[in-house]
């Protein structure tokens, strides 16, 4: 180690800021996991707070909180992954076959635009469309004498709205990645298929779709890795502190954030965060293990 350090002094030095960053930002906080086993008191700090063992976890479990948060987090993420990739692949295929160059460019830009805006603006958009008094949706409904509907107090609608907003914001981004993969497919395949008399639907189904599989698997693996981490910004900005909707929309991240900012349940919030990390860690390891058994090339590590 020392010999290497001496030989590549400069390289170590260039890597140092990055190592320090991850040490502070990621590794030091791991010590704080200890909070999950204490009843936090502000005077005592890290090791001055009374040790309570697994009490925080027990409480989370008994209140039914862990189960609800887990099903919500995993459920939403599965919907995001399946619908998000499906829609992106579908659009990328259509866009790649469209002949009008200008149309293609303009629509691609327009669909990529939502990816660039902040989640705060997303909440403004949701407010503009769905608020009770003056929301656009209610304006339209009133015109057809069908409204108004109190959307902000109707939990089940938000299950769909959250998924739709996720798709809306991310479609352009994932579409570009699939478009890139389609561009990489050699024209010879299509030429040969045309010679054999395959029509456009057959060419897509037997050439394009199978060729997208590696890209799909890689994106799938990446998103499976973060399945316990919800899109915090999305959920928090759309739902905020609207308690009526929690049952349908609370995920681990929003629960932890609220416990920290609103109710100051430090021990409980750390416990929920630790559960999230451990559960996610085990999940990734398992999935990766299975994938390596099936096909080594696709495994993440």
């Amino acid at each position: 180690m020392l010999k290497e350090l001496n030989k590549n002094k400069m390289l170590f030095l260039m890597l140092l800021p990055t190592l320090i960053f991850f040490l502070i930002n990621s590794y030091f906080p791991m010590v704080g996991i200890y909070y999950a086993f204490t009843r936090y008191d502000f005077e005592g700090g890290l090791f001055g707070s009374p040790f309570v063992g697994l009490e925080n976890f027990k409480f989370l479990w008994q209140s039914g909180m862990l189960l609800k948060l887990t099903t919500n987090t995993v459920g939403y993420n599965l919907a995001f992954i399946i619908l998000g990739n499906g829609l992106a692949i579908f659009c990328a295929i259509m866009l790649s076959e469209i002949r009008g160059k200008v149309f293609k460019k303009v629509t691609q830009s327009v669909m990529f635009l939502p990816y660039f805006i902040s989640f705060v603006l997303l909440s403004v958009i949701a407010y503009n469309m769905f608020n009770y008094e003056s929301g656009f949706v209610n304006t339209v409904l009133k015109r057809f004498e069908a409204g108004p509907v109190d959307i902000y107090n109707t939990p089940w609608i938000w299950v769909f709205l959250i998924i739709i907003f996720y798709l809306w914001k991310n479609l352009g981004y994932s579409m570009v990645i699939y478009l890139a993969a389609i561009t990489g497919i050699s024209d010879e395949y299509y030429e040969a298929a045309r010679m054999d008399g395959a029509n456009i639907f057959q060419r897509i189904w037997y050439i394009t779709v199978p060729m997208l599989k590696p890209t799909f698997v890689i994106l799938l693996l990446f998103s499976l890795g973060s399945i316990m981490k919800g899109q915090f910004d999305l959920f928090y900005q759309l739902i905020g502190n609207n308690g009526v909707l929690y049952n349908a929309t609370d995920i681990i991240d929003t629960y932890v954030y609220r416990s920290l900012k609103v109710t100051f349940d430090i021990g409980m919030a750390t416990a929920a965060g630790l559960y999230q990390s451990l559960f996610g860690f085990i999940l990734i390891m398992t999935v990766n293990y299975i994938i390596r058994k099936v096909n080594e090339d696709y495994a993440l590590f």
Partner: protein
Amino acid sequence: MHTRARDSEFTMLFQVIAYTFILFLSIICLVPFLLILSGSFSSNESIVRDGYHLFPTDFSLEGYKMVFKFPTQVLKAYGVTVFTTVVGTALGLFFITMAGFVLQRKDFKYRNTFSFFIYFTTLFGGGLVPWYIMLANYFNLTDTYTVLIFPGLMTPFLIILMKNFIRSAVPDELIESAKIDGANDFRIYFSVVLNLAMPGIATVGLFLALGYWNDWFTSSLFINNPDMYQLQFYLYNTMNTITFIDQMAIGTGITLSQDVPTESTKMAMAIIVTGPILFLYPFVQRYFVRGLTIGAVKG
């Protein structure tokens, strides 16, 4: 001959479906922006009476006038965001490119160990609360510019992206020959790698800048001084405060919203905060697409 005719029929059919579908989705992607724009140019009265429309029914600039009646706070928030975006992106790019360069060097023995050190943080972490307490209580970063910049400097994903990019853009032989010419590693990085990795740098830089520009979370956790609010958090606060005032007014029977154009002010504020992104978008988008394309084909 027969199959050829059938083929072109199918192709026609497909084109019709594709055009319709893509056009439909594009409109859906655009409409929410139009709604906000229209709201910002509508008179408050018309919004309260008839609700939001796709086009302003009663054109008015009162929302914008309201925001710029007291411009100092908005301008301060702009200043904070521009400052953190520029400094954070520059610093982040500097560190990320250096790390990427080092981690792809085959003659660097511990590159896999260090790569795993970085990658592991995506697998397991201490969670939000320990991280917050450490920065706030042990590093005393509440109400500092450091805390607005530090957490967003880099992510493992961006480092991996940069590492892959440099590996494919800079041939090993080039580094070798520069070494023989007597250049040290930093010199090689600075004058060879930085030049060749420009598309990768543009992409990673855009990711970083977007992250800083759209950040509201750091303010919400660490900033109590209103002069230091980031732009997005300022918008978030404005939205909540106005809604709060509205509800107060309903509760007390005072018709405040007639004097203060609350609805149109919210939308004008949203446009003012988002403006620069919408304006820069057409220029920036190209680089993003190109960078992602290269990255994805590698992946």
